[in-house]
């Protein structure tokens, strides 16, 4: 852990109690995030990527439990009481959710909702917080901000609501922004616009971002580093450049093959990963991707591959696969 490390996950797990046994959503994740860095977490639906964020914010469903460590500036978020957590979340850690249509309170004015965090966390008066909220709405390019702040969410479009969410999240200049598929629910034409705005504002405030998405294009645009999740584990983690140019893990390669590229004609056809994505279920002995992996060897189903640094493959890079040699050959 270096001096500038902001967040450090060590063996993070998320388990859910169900009527018939337990399901493991996140299965021992190690990740580090430096201040101001943008980290992408990619994976298919059910890979546990959103649950990582929820566990950090204390937002897991009632039957969910987080284990391991999540050190934010040296403080373990998972061991904090609700009250202690409330001094961090909304102020130093903010979150943007997937569905802007339902994430704003329909009964309260947009300006009030944005200002609320300032009133609670920084002790601002109502009018001062309101003025800040209007300024922030202006910065996320809501036209006629002072007027708009007095409106209700149903009078905003989806893209505008997500920009309101961004304003709300960045208002307190947090050190960490957790974004859970922030543009999935939006119109394709405005997705890039909203993402660029988010990244730009975060850069200005020096906010680090964890961006959870299943869109590799988004990751390539915004993220310095990428972690690829499958079955609740990190398969591979590397600088974005290195990951896209020289994917090491068979699953990463599968993901990239399934992505269309401009420079390639669509012959040969886009690749697909055989089988269906793993989601939930109990503990796995070997590699969770083994059942679908075309390069599987016997060890894959019997022994869990360790998540190790493999710097000999270029850049800082870690991966969990028996097929990748641990040192240069």
């Amino acid at each position, binding site marked *: 852990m270096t001096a500038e490390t902001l967040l450090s996950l060590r063996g993070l797990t998320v388990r859910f109690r169900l009527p018939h046994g337990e399901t493991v959503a996140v299965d021992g994740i190690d990740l580090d995030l430096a201040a101001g860095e943008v980290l992408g977490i990619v994976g298919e639906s059910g890979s546990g990527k959103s649950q990582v964020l929820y566990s950090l914010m204390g937002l897991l469903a009632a039957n969910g439990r987080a284990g391991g460590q999540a050190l934010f500036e040296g403080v373990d978020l998972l061991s904090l009481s609700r009250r202690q957590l409330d001094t961090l979340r909304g102020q130093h850690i903010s979150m943007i*959710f997937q569905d802007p249509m*339902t994430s704003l309170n329909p*009964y309260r004015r947009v300006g009030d909702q944005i200002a609320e965090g300032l009133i609670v966390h920084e002790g601002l008066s109502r009018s001062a917080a309101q003025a800040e909220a209007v300024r922030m709405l202006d910065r996320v390019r809501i036209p006629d901000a002072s007027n708009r702040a007095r409106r209700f969410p149903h009078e905003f479009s989806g893209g505008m609501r997500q920009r309101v969410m961004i304003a709300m999240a960045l208002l307190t200049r947090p050190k960490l922004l957790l974004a859970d598929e922030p543009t999935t629910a939006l119109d394709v034409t405005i997705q890039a616009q909203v993402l660029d705005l988010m990244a730009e504002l975060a850069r200005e405030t020096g906010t680090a971002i964890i961006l959870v998405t299943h869109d590799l294009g988004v990751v390539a645009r915004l993220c310095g580093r990428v972690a690829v999740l499958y079955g609740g584990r990190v398969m591979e983690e590397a600088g974005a450049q290195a990951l896209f140019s020289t994917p090491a893990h068979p699953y990463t390669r599968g993901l990239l093959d399934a992505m269309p590229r401009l420079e390639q004609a669509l012959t040969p056809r886009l690749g697909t990963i055989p089988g269906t994505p793993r989601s939930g279920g109990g503990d796995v002995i070997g590699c969770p991707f083994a059942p679908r992996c075309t390069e599987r060897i016997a060890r894959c189903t019997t022994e869990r591959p360790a998540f190790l640094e493999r710097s000999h493959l270029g850049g800082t890079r870690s991966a969990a696969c028996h097929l990748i040699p641990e040192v240069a050959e």
Partner: protein
Amino acid sequence: MLRFVGKRLWNGSLTLFALVTLTFFVMRLAPGGPFSRNRKISPEVQANIEAAFHLDEPIWQQFGRFVWGLLHLDLGPSTRFRDYSVGDIIASGLPYSLTIGAWAVLLAAFVGIALGIAGAMRRNGFTDYAAGTVGVIGIAIPIFVIGPVLQVIFAVKLQWLPVGSWNDGWRSLVLPVVVLALPNIAYISRLTRASMIETMRENYVRTAVAKGIGPTRTLMGHTLEGALIPVIAYLGPATAAIITGSILIETIFALPGIGRHFVDAALNRDYPLVMGITLLYGALLILFNIVTDLIRAWIDPRLRNAH
């Protein structure tokens, strides 16, 4: 907003007119009449009395006379208490019914909502089970069973409170109000609990939690508004029903409200009095429904624009 209220009032008066029309013909078509039970009077005298009340006219003419009177806010004298007009009788009984009804609504709303919130916040905790038990009792035991039982316990055995009637100040109010409120406490607490639990699953409540504003602010500023909308929707008609529901309470506790008058009037075919009380109840129901809609629109901006 004014147009909305005006439209509702107009629709309401149409419903009210349908109600009194139906009541009028049902009463006349029902076997028996106001004076048919009285065997002591001779047929000539009975004919004279009926003529005095215009009961000898064809039914359409009677209806016309009734509507004409209605437009002048004059419902005529009661056929049973011949010295009193319908207006007098209602004016003397209404204060009792309204007092009991209003206190019962307040008690039911306050206790019911508090129990519902407490149950939802600490699901499966002690409060939740206690509230659930009160709810089941309130819903399952009818007030004409629980009323007399409480009378026996608190009035006959313990002698803390009067059995009935209205001679003992606030002490006369306690039992009727509690008994009338009980089933509504049950409904309101169940409704509040279910609605709270649903609202707590809403994404915008999750946003509020993520803002780190603390549990109290999250509840008061975010969860409660949404959760109370169905409760308010229930409270409007329930208030009207509580006031009309005092028929039973007034019977059990021998109170001089209008509810008991209505039952007696219906049984004795006191046409004018039945019409008057029907009109009153119908108007109350419509009024409370409009008030409910206004409160809902005040809370929910989406409804405000729709009107």
